[in-house]
């Protein structure tokens, strides 16, 4: 039986940009064997008995040698704010890896990664599993203070950075840069994207026939397929984001085309 329910030790939990934290956790061999980029961890908020639900956080990076899982997250509400107070040495109850994740067929060589805000986090993990592709990254941040991990992308991808207010690199939305790049260098084999809903909406208008996969968010209960609360409408059906997602073919996500 593959185990997905672990108690892991926090190795570090640090502020890396405005309100953005990077947490490093130990992980098991079991985890490393089955992990796929785009999967997520479902984390119990420690010591907060009044908060019953776990919090889903995408896996940002996996260090296979050190056996570490990295998570990048924004402290936005009760749970993630408490998470940001966790210290190195504390233990966390985690379900991982969950969800389908991104899958790259062998012939998908030219890969474009498109991320907005905290949605940039899961895209970095592509490289740890598929180091042999030709990556271009389009990263959109709100402003200079919010920029995180941009340099990491530059190490393996041709990286375009935008900020909404122009306080760092290009002013504007990364989907605009993507559109320009499409015209200039032609379509990639695949686009993988993560970000807020409005970001997906503009992406949907641009990608045309290019195979494009998006990682969706939804308020979740169990994370394990049991409660049917985490649905998004995909192909006319309410699909479970935790089990059948979070990654879906953009063209099947109904809410992006109405």
């Amino acid at each position, binding site marked *: 039986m593959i185990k997905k329910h672990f108690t892991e030790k926090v190795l570090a939990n640090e502020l890396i940009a405005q309100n953005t934290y990077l947490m490093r956790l130990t992980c098991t061999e079991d985890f490393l064997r089955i992990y796929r980029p785009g999967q997520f961890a479902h984390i119990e908020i420690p010591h907060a008995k009044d908060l019953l639900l776990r919090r889903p956080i995408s896996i940002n990076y996996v260090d296979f040698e050190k056996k570490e899982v990295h998570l990048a997250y924004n402290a936005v509400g009760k749970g993630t704010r408490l998470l940001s107070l966790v210290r190195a040495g504390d233990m966390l109850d985690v379900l991982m890896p969950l969800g389908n994740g991104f899958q790259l067929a062998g012939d998908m060589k030219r890969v474009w990664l498109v991320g907005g805000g905290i949605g940039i986090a899961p895209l970095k993990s592509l490289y740890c599993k598929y180091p042999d592709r030709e990556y271009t990254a389009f990263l959109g941040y709100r402003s200079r203070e919010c920029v995180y991990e941009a340099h990491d992308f530059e190490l393996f991808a041709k990286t375009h950075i935008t900020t909404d207010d122009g306080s760092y690199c290009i002013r504007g939305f990364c989907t605009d840069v993507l559109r320009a790049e499409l015209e200039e260098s032609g379509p990639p084999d695949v686009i993988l994207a993560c970000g807020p809903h409005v970001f997906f909406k503009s992406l949907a208008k641009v990608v045309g026939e290019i195979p494009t996969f998006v990682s969706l968010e939804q308020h979740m209960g169990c994370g394990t397929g*049991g409660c049917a609360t985490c649905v998004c409408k995909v192909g006319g059906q309410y699909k479970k984001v935790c089990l059948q997602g979070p990654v879906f073919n953009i063209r099947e996500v109904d809410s992006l085309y109405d």
Partner: protein
Amino acid sequence: MTDMRVNIAGVELKNPIVTASGTFGFAEEYALYTDLSRLGGIALKALTREPRLGNPPVRIAETASGVLNSVGLQNPGVDEFLRTTWLRIKEIDTVKIANIAGACVEDYIYVAERLNDTGIDLFEVNVSCPNVKHGGVNFGTDEKTLRGVVEEVKKVSKKPLIVKLTPNVTHIADMAKAAADGGADVLSLINTITGMAINAVTRKPVLANVTGGLSGPAVKPVALRMVWEVYRANLGLPIIGMGGIMTGEDAAEFMIAGADAVMVGTATMRNPSAAKEIGFELEQFADKIGLERIGDLTGSLNIE
């Protein structure tokens, strides 16, 4: 060693811990996380006559020590269930309970008849649904309507009938009596309490459906009280208690209040192997106090 077996309307459970309907999918999702054969039983997700899309998301909200949900009975319909999922789960070595829902009496009857000749052990009639034929009044909040639907389903059922009571009523014991009069073999309670969450900043409800059902430790005091009220009504039917059970001691409290078995719902959302662990904890608790049979707890509340 305490004998953990309990008998519910002629069906023997290995132990009193059953997963609650709607929180354990169709069980197969949990094979990865827990040893299903250690559970006393499994109540499957609600089944309806036709496939149901369910409510739009957001379908879940967190409240203080509670959870609101508005899944809206999403399910593939009983026929599709029998063709696919059932074939994969029917060999699971524990008691299997089908949760049956509908918008009119005929819906319930259809589902019960389709499940009659399967290896399902018990039917659980979910009466927290609005009755479309009677102006949307909830089946479970009106005594006559409740008695009526139970009577009709009982007529066609080849399995013992659990009637699952909704807590959204003035007098739970009266509803329990109506179900008993209609022919219920077992009573289970409580289903969720209707509630609502609001985002003050956006001024919108958190749930797309506006209201949802509250579950979890927040409702435990209400659930315990209702189990006790139904137990004291002396209807002679076994009771399955639930509402916020997170530990073996919680389970013991429900049995002391009058439950013969219990169901674990929200706890599974936090910990996929909660039901199994709660079973172990209950066993430990029973061993420690030197109980011969776990059933000896039932109704043992000492009120002097």
